[in-house]
């Protein structure tokens, strides 16, 4: 039997290939760590160690102007936070600013994506146009909108030419210098700056929805609105979730618009948690207290992210 005699040889051959494969796998194992190492080392130094140090600092009474004496105070900074009315106010304003901004960004982005998803000419041109606010640095967008809302900026100019000033809106009304209008202006600016991200994300997701679903909906006599609601929306739901998570995180953490336009004012009416932490650290020099606020922000972000990831998992499983 020829087959029998060939068995041992093929077995040794197979074992040696196994061995070679194993060694190769081992080498790729090690190489995985080698390739990952530079990035990880840098991240440890610029992200993880600073965060750990921040946690440690938040347990100390540490002023920038007295760097030599920083007594350990335990949770005192956190206890102070609970009794600081400004902290609670900033927390509420953060929620208002973040939720309202992201809601506007979301709706505007959806509208733009629906429009861009039609088969029209110059689509690439319009898509480029929509992207522009995203590439403008936040600090410059903030300045631009601050200039639009000055006492004789564009908004007051338009109101003036329409003859609308003097009634509900006083003439030469400085929008950013009043507590009641500063926050809405910030939200408007944030909507302008942030909606392109949503538009691009939604557009990409919409283009991935299989076209036979629309075909089927049309054959069944569904109107445009119905097919949007029953085909498009379910098709992009996962993207909606992820995009709004990222939008929330970015808006929550962003400081450049507020820094440039109001610096948290007037009278703290636009102070968000991040702004408060910044003011405490670099305005007042209370680094211990500021890092305590930063840690609260970290925990809040962690909770929001965890909730979203949970929702995302459930959504993906249900599809």
């Amino acid at each position, binding site marked *: 039997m020829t087959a029998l005699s060939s068995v041992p040889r093929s077995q040794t051959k197979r074992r040696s290939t196994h061995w070679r494969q194993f060694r190769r796998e081992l080498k790729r194992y090690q190489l995985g760590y080698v390739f990952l190492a530079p990035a990880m080392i840098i991240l440890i130094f610029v992200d993880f160690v600073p*965060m750990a140090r921040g946690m440690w600092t938040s347990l100390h009474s540490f002023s920038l102007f007295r760097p030599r004496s920083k007594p350990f105070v335990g949770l005192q900074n956190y206890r102070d936070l609970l009794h600081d009315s400004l902290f609670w106010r900033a927390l509420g304003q953060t929620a208002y600013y973040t939720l309202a901004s992201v809601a506007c960004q979301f709706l505007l982005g959806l509208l733009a994506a629906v429009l861009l998803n039609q088969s029209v000419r110059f689509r690439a041109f319009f898509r480029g146009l*929509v992207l522009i606010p995203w*590439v403008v640095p936040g600090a410059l967008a903030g300045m*631009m909108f601050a*200039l639009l809302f000055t006492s004789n900026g564009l908004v007051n100019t338009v109101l*003036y030419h329409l003859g609308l000033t003097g009634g509900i809106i006083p003439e030469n009304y400085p929008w950013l210098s009043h507590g009641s209008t500063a926050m809405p202006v910030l939200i408007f600016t944030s909507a302008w700056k942030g909606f392109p991200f949503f538009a691009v994300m939604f557009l990409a997701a919409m283009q991935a929805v299989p076209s036979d679903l629309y075909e089927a909906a049309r054959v069944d006599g569904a109107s445009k609105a119905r097919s949007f609601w029953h085909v498009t929306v379910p098709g992009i739901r996962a993207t909606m979730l992820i995009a709004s998570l990222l939008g929330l995180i970015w808006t929550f953490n962003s400081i*450049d618009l507020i820094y440039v336009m109001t610096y948290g004012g007037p009278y703290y009416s636009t102070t968000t948690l991040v702004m408060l932490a910044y003011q405490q650290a670099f305005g007042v020099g209370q680094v211990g207290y500021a890092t305590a606020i930063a840690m609260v922000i970290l925990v809040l972000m962690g909770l929001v992210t965890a909730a979203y990831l949970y929702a995302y998992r459930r959504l993906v499983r249900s599809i």
Partner: protein
Amino acid sequence: MTKALSKSVPDDEVPGSVHTAKPVTDTSGHRPRERHRITYLGLILVGCFVLVPFLWMLIGSFKPTNELLGDQGKALLSSHFTVQNYVHLFKQYDYARYFANSALVAVVTALIATSISAFAGYALARFRFPGRGFAGFLILVTQMLPLIAVLIPLFIWFKSFNLIDTYSSLFIAYNAFAIPFSTWMLRGFFSELPLELEEAARVDGAGEFTIFFRIVLPISATGLMATAIFCFILAWQEFLFAITFISSGSKFTLTVGIAGMFGRDVVDWGLLDAGVVISTVPLAILFAVLQRFLVRGLTAGAVKG
């Protein structure tokens, strides 16, 4: 029926082709032409929303300063066209310097982050090793880190190393957000490459480093480019680190320099308009042209995450 034949016949004349049948009635109540008109109208409105702020800055930047004050400022167009604001901008402020500083910081950040992340992204995309999932998760989470939480400790740390008010402080600190982002983006690019090329090279006896440098990197040139452009933009836009770490005017980046102009006690509106125009418009146009790369980057991190 052959394809060629069916192509030559208008769709609705092909017998028995259900899927190409045109809808007899459009239930939305508009004729297709009219619907397109609404789409165009909507797109133009969105376009106006995007562009009007720039236009207002552009108009203001060519007005003489005295015409920007009081009710005169409310004139939509000025009779006196002047480039004085732009001249002042370059004379009074080290404006070209701000621009160069921003470019330097952004280029260095893009180079460092893209090259380091290329290795990390490839490791996450291709190598199987214990802890890979955790490393990927860690990098993804870092992307969502509140920068204020690392800003204050980094400031204290840099201060003790005398790194405050140096470009290096930014080169180092910008990795905090650029590396997680670009690693994740490149991971997406690499995992979409066809495995066959690498397998073929492996069969030919090529080592992993050779494969990475000679095969993977060259065929992912677009991906590397997109990542670098994205990092460039992130660094170009950055404000918080720059305004905290940099204190001397000669090292200001564009965002910090322009924001500083806003804070002066005498507010020269025309100058500010000119400053905003010249720091946003050229790059906004450039990046809108590069949108192919940007769209890829914007969606890479999220959709595939």
